[in-house]
């Protein structure tokens, strides 16, 4: 059987194996992205609007953090969650929660940095103009986020792409446990190591499909109301 036919067969019949792995990949990445957004959007807004010492240094730190190697993020989370670590009692090591946490660590600097850039791009005067029209702090923040929705969705796309494709952190704090913490990237590494190229290729195609559809949805959101 040719590789292509075998891959197609895997995608068709291997459903019971493949799809749960794909689903978990999606769950972990979206949880990571959600945590990162919950922290990163307010933080980015604060960095963009705030006038306090050290603000530039923090923006620089967030920019630098966009390049954090996933294995390093994995290592930091592992140190926290290891049985003897500060959060060891939670027994989260080798669970999807640990993976989501590591991924949040990877995505947060991306969200912080691109949110700050997106808000700053609106100019110095818009935040004050909104206040001068009678906006409270909350209303001002909400309006600015709405106004910067295009760069914010771009930030989400960038972060989602990074999370779906990372292997190092998921491997380190997830452990690639079948049926528990196996995601598409860790499964691919394992299948290739075992010579199952057809299955690895099928997993790869599924990963590509996932990445494309998430970015498709975000692009649609981005362009929906601005045509």
């Amino acid at each position, binding site marked *: 059987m040719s590789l292509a036919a075998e891959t197609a067969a895997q995608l068709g019949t291997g459903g019971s194996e493949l799809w749960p792995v794909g689903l978990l990949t999606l769950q972990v990445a979206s949880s990571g992205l959600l945590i990162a957004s919950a922290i990163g959007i307010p933080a980015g807004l604060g960095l963009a609007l705030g006038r306090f010492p050290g603000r530039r240094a923090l923006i620089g730190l967030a920019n630098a953090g966009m390049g954090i190697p996933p294995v390093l993020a994995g290592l930091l989370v592992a140190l926290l969650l290891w049985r003897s670590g500060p959060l060891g009692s939670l027994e989260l090591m080798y669970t999807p929660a640990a993976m989501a946490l590591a991924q949040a660590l990877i995505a947060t600097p991306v969200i912080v940095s691109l949110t700050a850039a997106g808000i700053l791009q609106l*100019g110095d*005067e*818009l935040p*004050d*103009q909104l*206040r*001068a*029209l*009678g*906006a*409270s702090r909350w*209303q001002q923040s909400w*309006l600015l986020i*709405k*106004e910067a929705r295009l760069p914010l969705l771009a930030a989400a796309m960038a972060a989602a792409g990074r999370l779906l494709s990372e292997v190092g952190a998921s491997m380190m704090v997830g452990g690639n446990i079948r049926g528990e913490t196996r995601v598409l990237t860790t499964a691919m590494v394992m299948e290739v190591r075992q010579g199952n190229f057809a299955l690895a290729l099928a997993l790869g195609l599924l990963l590509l499909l996932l990445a494309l559809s998430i970015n498709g949805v975000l692009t649609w959101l981005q362009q929906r109301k*601005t045509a």
Partner: protein
Amino acid sequence: MSSPALSSIAPITSMRELVLRRGGRDVLRVEALDIRQGETWVLVGPNGSGKTTLLRALGMLEPPSSGTLELFGRPPGLSPSLELRRRTVLAFQQTLLLADTALANVALPLRLRGVDRAGAEKAAREALELFQASTLAGRRARQLSGGEARRIALARAFAAKPELLLLDEPFAALDPPSREALSSDLKRALKASGTTCVAVSHDRAEALALADHVGILLGGKLAQAGPIDEVFRAPAAEEVARFIGVENLLPARIRSRSADAIRIEVAGVELTCAPSEIGGETALACIRAQDVLLAEGPLGHLSARNAIACRVAALEPSSSGIRVRLDGPFPLVALLTRAAADELRLAPGAQVTALFKSSAVHLA
């Protein structure tokens, strides 16, 4: 007319010894200024005179560096309450519309104040009507031209019916016809609603078109403030006169004073001017170019008290007419309409008599 309640007599805003600082240096000092209910003020000054800083202080976006500023009878303090801030609206020089429809932009200040969508949109449509922008309601902000965006920004500032409306260069970057149209719409809207307004501008003509009160910001301070005809007819100082465009500023020696006139001497010529409080022996006689009339050749006796024989030195066309530079005992500038200049067949070298009433001469 009913007698005004005490609250309407008290000024909307009151400044005493106010100092505004920006980037570590004093940009503006205001000794005393009271702005009352229903007045339209235009504060005029060159770029960098602290106009915007003053407006930001009035809009409670930044506190004054020292002195007292009261709004609605109380000092706003370092963190003014939302309720207090919502009694004013400041429209920035940039239109700064949100990426939404014009209607949603105009409705925004009402939505921010908790008005439901239907109520906010109804008020927004009324505000659009005031600025003849009803047809723009459904357009998105970035599809608007500069002039249209300016109308929407003004309608937005008006929509929530603020008690004090603050406008930073409301007609900036508009061509003269749109500026005039918008200025008269704004003036009408202000009078109809009785809204108190403080606008800042670098353009004297704008102030004349819009304001009933004017403040002149020069050299880091509020140099003069008051009803517009008072300031433009009787500038308090030479710098003010120059800035507001009084073209004839003549150093004069005071000869005699009487109840109905003051006799002055300018370059050996005696002139009569309206009585004034001015003391001392010397003064600056200020005569607006549009108050100087010209007659062909020499003249007999006239009702105008001041008649000077001159020679036409130069003719300069300008947007407001023809500026005629005159040589005589002292240089003078007269502003004539094109038709009048044509009728007199003025040409450089022509002998004319320059006339102005004593009431056109102000001493500073």
